[in-house]
């Protein structure tokens, strides 16, 4: 019986040693229509198969499928000159028609990672030139659209009505450095083999495999040699691997953010003074040090991470000051009327603050801070899907969330607080003040870089005043790797739009850094 069942899961075969990368779950079929958007693993894996017009290295944007580009003075027209001799995995040439087709197809069948509503039309000027016409100026276009959206082959997808249902290896034809050779969804196993016809040359790493390893055992998997690249948020791995002959640790920029999201429609958290009282009550430095064990950067009320090229210190600050927090709460009518250590409102009801969270331990120090100023702070621990549901429906007062994306183009200052972000974990609040909306629109549509910078700074100031969110800390990811197999490095501002993953396709190409 055992042998019979074993035979069901054991096909025969053999292979050479690949680079093996650990991830904690399957990320879906790797086409722009079926990949998983839970976490950034799916969209990053797509970049091995597909190319975009531009790309990023450790210094920022670089030409990729487009060897050059120019922008119209009004910022609404982008002309991309494509490289010659770029071919699809099936040997056909990649042309401007494919680029036009991709944008047109994504209008009907959305590429879920990027909102393309700003693209009005895409025209083919000649075989190698494509013109993208925007509905309005959009400053993040190059970094958040041109360097993210995959170009797909027209000859594969033309006439396909339900692309998400089409999940066969033959449709994964891209122009990227790797071809998909095998996908086993039940194992979360992906095997990518080098595409020798790649326009940037033959990839040095001949085969990349992705395997599923539970989060808690990724360190062990690297130590035991089961995988060559894996991730953890535990800073202790730096000490663990120090002095090891081949295993190294690469810390990313702290692009993962942990923050409290306030429901601005809630009678309690909708009051700005209350949010400011919370900001004074929470020991952000202490929370950051405790939860990240010293590896995180304490939160900035202006949302942008200190050290980020777009950061400005000219924002409103909230020192850890429980006395001031109590004073603000008293101003709002909350006092300890019965001497029980908790604040009560004018009608005698206790000030109860419920924090919706999926990470009870990380929320604990925040609750302690709030309790110290007299709030009856309670955690409502739910799974991530329920948390997303409560956030989407506005059924919360305070919500604790962690997600990536605190880097790259600063347009996230708009999308996080306007309900337009693709990342469900970045959702939860919409700031409707005219001042926020004005600066959010201005920074997105600014053509002049200096004007944009000013608008982004103003936006940070507004966010620090209004406090739709209280950022607690930014933390890095730690990538453990076998230096004999690969040498990863950090992409500036994160891969794509602020993703602290290190499998930039350039890592696998010889001499491309």
């Amino acid at each position, binding site marked *: 019986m055992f042998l019979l069942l074993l035979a*069901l899961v054991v096909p025969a075969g053999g292979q050479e040693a690949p680079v093996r990368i650990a991830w904690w779950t399957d990320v879906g079929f790797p086409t722009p229509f079926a990949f998983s958007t839970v976490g950034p693993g799916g969209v990053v894996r797509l970049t091995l198969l597909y190319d975009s017009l531009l790309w990023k290295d450790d210094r920022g944007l670089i030409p990729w499928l487009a060897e050059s580009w120019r922008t119209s003075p009004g910022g609404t027209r982008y002309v991309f000159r494509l490289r010659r001799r770029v071919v699809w995995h099936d040997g056909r040439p990649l042309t401007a028609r494919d680029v036009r087709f991709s944008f047109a197809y994504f209008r009907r069948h959305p590429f879920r990672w990027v909102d393309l509503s700003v693209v009005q039309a895409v025209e083919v000027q000649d075989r190698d030139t494509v013109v993208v016409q925007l509905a309005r100026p959009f400053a993040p276009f190059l970094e958040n659209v041109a360097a993210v959206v995959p170009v797909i082959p027209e000859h594969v997808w033309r006439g396909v009505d339900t692309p998400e249902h089409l999940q066969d290896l033959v449709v994964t034809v891209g122009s990227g450095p790797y071809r998909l050779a095998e996908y086993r969804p039940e194992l979360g*196993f992906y095997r990518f083999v080098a595409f020798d016809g790649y326009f940037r040359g033959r990839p040095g790493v001949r085969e990349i495999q992705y395997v599923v390893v539970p989060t808690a055992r990724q360190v062990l998997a690297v130590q035991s040699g089961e995988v060559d690249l894996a991730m953890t948020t535990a800073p202790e791995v730096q000490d663990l691997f120090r002095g090891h002959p081949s295993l190294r640790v690469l810390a990313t920029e702290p692009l993962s953010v942990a923050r409290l999201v306030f429901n601005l429609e809630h009678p309690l958290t909708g009051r700005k003074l209350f949010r400011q009282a919370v900001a004074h009550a929470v020991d952000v430095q202490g929370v950051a040090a405790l939860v990240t064990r010293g590896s995180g950067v304490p939160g900035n009320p202006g949302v942008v991470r200190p050290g980020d090229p777009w950061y400005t210190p000219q924002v409103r600050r909230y020192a850890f000051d429980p006395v001031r927090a109590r004073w603000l709460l008293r101003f709002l009518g909350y006092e300890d009327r019965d001497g029980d250590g908790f604040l009560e409102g004018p009608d005698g009801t206790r000030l109860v603050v419920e924090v919706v969270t999926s990470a009870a331990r990380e929320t604990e120090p925040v609750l302690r801070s709030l309790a110290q100023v007299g709030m009856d702070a309670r955690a409502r621990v739910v799974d991530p899907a329920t948390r997303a*549901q409560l956030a989407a429906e506005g059924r919360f007062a305070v919500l604790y969330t962690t997600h990536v994306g605190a880097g790259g183009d600063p347009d996230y200052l708009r999308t996080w607080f306007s309900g337009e972000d693709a990342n469900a974990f970045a959702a939860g609040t919409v700031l409707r003040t005219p001042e926020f909306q004005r600066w959010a629109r201005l920074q997105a549509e600014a053509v002049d870089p200096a004007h944009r910078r000013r608008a982004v700074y103003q936006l940070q100031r507004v966010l620090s005043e209004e406090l739709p969110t209280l950022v607690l800390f930014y933390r890095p990811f730690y990538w453990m790797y076998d230096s004999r197999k690969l040498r990863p490095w950090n992409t500036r501002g994160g891969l794509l739009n602020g993703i602290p993953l290190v499998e930039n396709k350039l890592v696998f190409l010889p001499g491309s850094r």
Partner: protein
Amino acid sequence: MRAGWGAAAARWLLLGVGVVLANFALPRLLPGSPLTAPELAPLPAVAHQRIRAEYLLGRPWTEQFVHYLGSVARGDLGRSLVSFRPVTQVVGERLPWTLLLVSTSWTAAAVLGAVLGTLSAAKGQGRWTSAWLSAAVLIGSLPEFLLAGLLILTFSVWLALLPASGAPVPPHSWDQVARHVFLPVVTLTVSATPAFALVSRDLVGAVLREPFLLTVRAKGASSWGVLRHAWRCALPSFLTLAGLRLAGLVTGAAAVERVFGYPGLGSLLFDAVLQRDYPVIQGVFLLGSVLVLTASTLLEVVARWLDPRVR
């Protein structure tokens, strides 16, 4: 005899109806909706409308139930809301892994439990019997995830003999799969064996006290011969209880699969619940329930066939 079969068929039918009802209702009783789960939330409104229409989300439950019954009757379990693949395919890929894990553990635990229980019954009361009974109760009450953690710590971390993860990397070889499946099987076996041992000890012990075995002994039968006679009487009850234990083992397997990252139905169900992937949740429940019901019924049939009093 015929009345007995009729009652069994009626019970099977009743359970089947219960399974279908629970299968439909349980995912919908979960807080949250697939459309606001992190997986589908980023989709634009047009896509949400299409999914709503396809899966009748937001329509009255009665309408959804009629649609669900029709689909199940056609053998169409729908497509996953997350991976967009047919549920039959998604579930079918995981099934052999869970069958491998559960059937191996169940068989090993039953055999091991039967041997230990028989030895204990044959020895009678004593200090050693009390000691192993206490140990069995202690081990049997340990949650599977704790046992799994202890085994990982021992065999993967300290001794570095076996892989910590349950999902082997293709292409699979026999030894590689066996190495990966070993710890999950041991976890489930260790967890289930005490129950089998205690049951078989009671069953065999009770039979050994029956007067007819005096006759067997008087005829000069060896100890082995006496036990063989005892087991002939105890086996039907043992098989019935083993069938009941199967459901518990399937549930335990879900936790073990999760801890080891083992690619079975339990891991699939866990992810599907987090993603509110209704069709997959329903598919796994349905298949798991049908498998357990079928196996239990088959064991009951065998037990009846073996029991001369019923036969």
